[in-house]
């Protein structure tokens, strides 16, 4: 795993070395290393409170209390669990907020079309459904043409059906624009459906890294995914469900 990280070091989309973050006496991120290759889709899982959001906020430049080295591209965009649309700006104006391209309006219209929200361009954010708001939030991140896209549990508040269509949307957007993606989720299946690599955050570090090579779109019941799921759940401290599946080794 370590050697794999090293090989992409020169051309990484983001590089984190020795990142630590303490809240009072509590160490949430502890000397964490992470490297993200350009265009790579990474999913990060971890139990609640392990510091996933803290890491993402650090990468987004929102945390001034970190120590360590952090190299991120200038074009970093974030979509949060709550869409965080500015309620007094219409959807299209939310997209162009802070956007410094000359043809911002056209770019925004294009992004809204991509997420299927053209008809809601003039709507007030408070009139959007949860799924629509989240798509608008994605579009707002996309118009910035990020080379690093940070997603903090953006689908966890959505219903199951909406979530599936959001997965498809994110994949198609990623395939078209090819940003490096760091998706934080607590849903192992979501991670397995989307990512090239799944990381497990535990005790302030990347405790486990698993490459997912199954081509997309992925069948949830693909044997490789089933094995990986079991492995990841074990990493997360969830005991195996089927008695037949042995708990592979201990993690040390």
């Amino acid at each position, binding site marked *: 795993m370590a050697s794999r990280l090293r090989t992409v070091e020169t051309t990484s989309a983001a590089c984190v070395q020795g990142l630590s973050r303490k809240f009072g006496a509590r160490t949430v991120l502890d000397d964490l290393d992470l490297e993200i290759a350009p265009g790579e889709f990474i999913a990060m899982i971890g139990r609640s409170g392990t510091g996933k959001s803290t890491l993402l906020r650090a990468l987004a430049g*929102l945390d001034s209390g970190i120590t360590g080295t952090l190299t991120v591209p200038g074009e970093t965009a974030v979509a*949060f669990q*709550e869409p965080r649309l500015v*309620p007094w*700006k219409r959807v299209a104006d939310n997209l162009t*907020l*802070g*956007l410094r391209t000359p043809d911002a309006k056209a770019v925004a219209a294009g992004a809204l079309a991509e997420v299927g929200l053209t008809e809601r361009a003039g709507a007030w954010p408070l009139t*959007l459904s949860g799924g629509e708001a989240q798509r608008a939030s994605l579009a707002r991140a996309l118009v*910035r043409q990020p080379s690093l896209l940070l997603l903090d549990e953006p689908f966890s508040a959505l219903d199951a059906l909406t979530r599936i269509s959001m997965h498809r949307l994110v994949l198609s957007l990623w395939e078209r624009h090819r940003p490096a993606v760091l998706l934080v989720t607590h849903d192992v299946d979501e991670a397995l459906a989307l990512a090239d690599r799944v990381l497990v955050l535990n005790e302030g570090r990347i405790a486990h890294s698993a490459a997912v090579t199954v081509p997309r779109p992925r069948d949830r019941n693909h044997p490789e995914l089933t094995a990986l799921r079991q492995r990841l759940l074990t990493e997360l401290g969830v005991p195996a469900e089927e008695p037949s599946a042995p708990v592979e080794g201990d993690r040390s």
Partner: protein
Amino acid sequence: MSASVHDASAAAARPAVAAGATPPTRRAEGRSRRDGWLRIVSPIALVLLWQLLSATGVLPPSKLVSPTTVVHEGWTLITTNNPSYGTLQYSLAVSAERWGIGFSIGTVAAIILAVATGLSRIAEYVVDPIVQVLRSIPLLGILPLFIVWFGIGELPKILIVLLGALFPMYVNTYAEIRGIDPKLGEAARTLGLSWWGRIRHIVLPGGLPGALSGIRLGSFASLLALVVAEQFNTNAGLGFMITQAESFLQNSIIVLVLVVYAILGLLANGIVRLIERKALAWRRDFAR
């Protein structure tokens, strides 16, 4: 005013209500527009009753003159220059100028203070306690002090109007800005908005609902302050008319000026409502 603060947090809490909201919304909107007309009925009925009581002699003119007398008195004062009062429009213009200057400066000052205290803990600790202390002093009690300090010219009157506008404006705007979801500011930073950009796109529009309730309350408070201020050492203005009428025992003029005040108050309220309808459209559809 507390209602507006509440709304802000509801807005921040967000989509839960969402998709199906459009049809009931339209109905609610239609109802409120119809309500607008219904609300005029009872005041008109009251005026008619007043006229009826005057005409039948139940209300003697020595206590309260009839509405028609008030209208007639008003017309006379508009068309002729009364030696004791001047014309009504002149008095109105004098008062309007005092009010306009005091109110605009008070409003701008309140917004600047509210943005400062809403954004900075230091400014909050410095400014807010002072404003709260000053606010708890009855405004009209300060007037004699102002007259001692600044004489009997325009300054004390304008100052008292200014403070009348400033306090409610400040308190409401400050509360609203404090109520803005910090996550919104964070999102704005990830969108690359500068400090000024965040003030302009997040803080100011976010504080607007509070500022508008502040304007509504402040316009009443400052008008009240003006009325009283104009009754001391003045030789022009609406309050001056009342003082004059009082010394001449001219009940009809006193009532006339009170009616003018009522109209001014309603006008101010109506203007703020209009602005709210436009500027707060983003949350009008949001059920309370």
